[in-house]
């Protein structure tokens, strides 16, 4: 019973990381129908920025904040320079461009930071918490991880739903033609979307790197899991991204805990294939057709 609790809680923690990546993918997908294959690479790069800042300033929080800012900048810069020119061209162009960005980021990281595994500090203690002597399987840092992702998600959700800027983004995502004819600068909206995706990726990166260590490919697996979570929830649905992440995180935690930790990747891929086969629009998608 205690085991169940531990697996569930640690599954929720990792699930939140997958949710963060899934959310960043959904943000970009909704506006542009583009899957940002470079999302993991962006997160990895901003985490390297964080670690360098932390080494130089001896301040974790300086690194944390600067990583988030770097995420905003990297996201916006990617959209403006290489993704924007692919608008209106065959979709394959955009796909190739984001894969190219991924390769570029991982190559740059290798050149500037080297390929060796580096440890990344955690914001808070990583010793397991106990309640009445029962080990929970999660630490203070894990609680911080969940809180940080939830808080960011909530802030974004509130912004989208209740502000004019958020309305602009939703309008541009649902119907870019109507948006443009109403005076919305859809180009700017897209850049902001990518910037926010970069921010979410950066957050995921600094939160997960204490567990995975940091190296040029460290976010590849997380990207795949985040993508799976987004597919489970439905690529159009932010709520789905969060739920998908949690489901995947908890599910894989049970698989790893009760069966075998080597099976988790296999199961993750199996889930992805299953969802794509049975309900490709994801759990949260209505049977809504998108107007072209």
């Amino acid at each position: 019973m205690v085991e169940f609790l531990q697996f569930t809680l640690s599954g929720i923690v990792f699930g939140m990381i997958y949710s963060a990546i899934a959310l960043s993918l959904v943000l970009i997908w909704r506006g542009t129908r583009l899957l940002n294959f470079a999302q993991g690479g962006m997160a990895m790069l901003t985490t390297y920025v964080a670690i360098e800042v932390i080494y130089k300033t001896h301040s974790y929080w300086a690194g944390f904040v600067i990583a988030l800012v770097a995420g905003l900048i990297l996201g916006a810069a990617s959209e403006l320079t290489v993704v924007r020119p692919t608008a209106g061209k065959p979709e394959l162009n955009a796909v190739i461009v984001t894969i190219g960005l991924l390769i570029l980021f991982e190559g740059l990281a290798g050149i500037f930071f080297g390929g060796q595994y580096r440890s990344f500090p955690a914001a808070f203690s990583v010793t397991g918490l106990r309640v009445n002597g029962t080990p929970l399987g999660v630490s203070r840092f894990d609680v911080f991880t969940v809180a940080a992702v939830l808080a960011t998600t909530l802030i974004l959700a509130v912004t989208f739903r209740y502000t004019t800027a958020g309305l602009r983004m939703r309008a541009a995502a649902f119907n870019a033609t109507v948006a443009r004819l109403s005076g919305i600068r859809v180009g700017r909206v897209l850049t902001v979307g990518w910037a926010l995706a970069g921010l979410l990726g950066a957050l995921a990166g600094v939160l997960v790197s204490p567990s995975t260590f940091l190296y040029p490919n460290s976010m590849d697996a997380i990207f795949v899991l985040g993508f799976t979570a987004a597919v489970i929830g439905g690529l159009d649905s932010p709520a789905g991204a969060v739920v998908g992440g949690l489901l995947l995180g908890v599910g894989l935690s049970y698989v790893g805990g009760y069966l075998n930790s080597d099976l988790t990747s296999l199961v993750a891929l199996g889930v992805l294939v299953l969802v794509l086969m049975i309900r490709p629009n994801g759990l949260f998608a209505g049977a809504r057709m998108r107007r072209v």
Partner: protein
Amino acid sequence: MSSGTNGLGPAVGSDRDGAAGGSDRDGAAGGSASLAVDGLVAGYGEVIALDGVTVMAGAGSITAVLGANGAGKTTLLRAVSGMIKARRGRILLADHDVVGRSPEQIVRAGIAHVPEGQGVIPELTVEENLRIGMMSWRRGPRAGRVAALEEEYARFKPLADRRRKPASTLSGGERQMLVIARALLARPRVLLLDEPSLGLAPRVMAQVMDLIVQLSRERGLTIVLVEQNARSALAIADHGVVLNLGRVVASADAAILATDVALRHHYLGF
């Protein structure tokens, strides 16, 4: 049959937004402006859909653009609103050439386009759909926007009743009201309507036509109306233009066009 008025003067410079003497987009109604296209050429890829079209819509008038499917009517509106790039020709808003501007700039200059069919965003509420219409406004006090919304709600009661409901719950006629109200919120001086009666029941279509006449009279809005239903369009228009295969084949007072039986049979189907 063409009445041949081609009094298009030279364009007075190509100013950036706002300088086309438009409304200052703070919510004040902008009055009306004439719209003219001069020798407009536009198309899609290799297909030329507009082959040198010249149309004049006087300030405050209703101009009907008619013709069979594929004649270029929708392309004309799209070129004027900037959705597609004109390859040649001028688009004169009150004698200022706005050709080549983006849709975002053109709506700020004072031309609002209600495209055919699509227009309502069903996932958003009625009020959110309307607020999108004010996105071209310059920053200003919120009170102005609220007042503008209330004004549209007063005119369109069904929208007021459903303001917080998803726009997907609206009927066809109500949706048409919504997209027109949204366009009006952009405080345009020229309103382009593409097939506003499409898919509507006859009674609702009549209401929409009445609305269009009201807008022209009350607000002095210059209206360019593309319609398949030539009879209804000519009944409310001041001037009519008939397109065929991307060219203007007739341009005259609506009353004259309506009585030209040969023309009607040949191009308009009645």
